[in-house]
């Protein structure tokens, strides 16, 4: 079946701009996670949704980062006033009720 999909695959933006990254989870998966991965590092947790609500947003680095999942399926990660330090690969994962997390291919964000 279809895996987790993320769009766009690449995003280049200028410092100070607003960006949205989209994640389509595996059909039927109730949990959705966002991670951020810098070069040479493992993925770092940002936020976790169970259904429509954010069950844990402790990994969001500051209030410029926000994520939504209004219908319990697709999620959007929103970054305001982007900074060069936000450049990374943003990974989305989904799971069925907290079991194994399956990852998408990621969105590579570059802030110039």
């Amino acid at each position, binding site marked *: 079946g279809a895996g987790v999909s993320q769009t766009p695959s690449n995003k280049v933006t200028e410092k100070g701009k607003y960006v949205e990254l989209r994640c389509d989870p595996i059909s039927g998966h109730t949990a959705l996670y966002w991670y951020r991965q810098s070069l040479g590092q*493992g*993925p770092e947790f940002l936020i*976790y949704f169970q259904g429509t609500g954010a069950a844990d947003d402790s990994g969001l680095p500051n209030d410029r980062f926000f994520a939504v999942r209004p219908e319990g399926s697709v999620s959007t990660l929103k970054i305001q006033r982007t900074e060069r330090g936000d450049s990374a690969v943003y990974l989305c994962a989904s799971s069925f009720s907290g079991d194994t997390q399956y990852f998408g*291919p990621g969105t590579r964000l570059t802030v110039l």
Partner: protein
Amino acid sequence: EDQVTQSPEALRLQEGESSSLNCSYTVSGLRGLFWYRQDPGKGPEFLFTLYSAGEEKEKERLKATLTKKESFLHITAPKPEDSATYLCAVQAVKVQGGGTASKLTFGTGTRLQVTL
């Protein structure tokens, strides 16, 4: 705070030369330990979940084992197509808050290169 340390950072093997990757962890209460494979430019691909000390799982040339403090990923007679970064992650038992599970805490990975 949950922590995961992987060693070595990089490993170069010849085809057929078996070896092991190490993952040491500290976690408040282990719900599961996960191994993923990541190819350049792609997302992590799930390999194994281990839940309790003494558990072992195998898939083709890979075997994962778990103790109370560490996990090993054994690679037997590797082939060039096994070249990738191998990531280890732990998931803690959730004690409060919403949802039924929690985040993964990852190590920095072991970059494996298998040459002919």
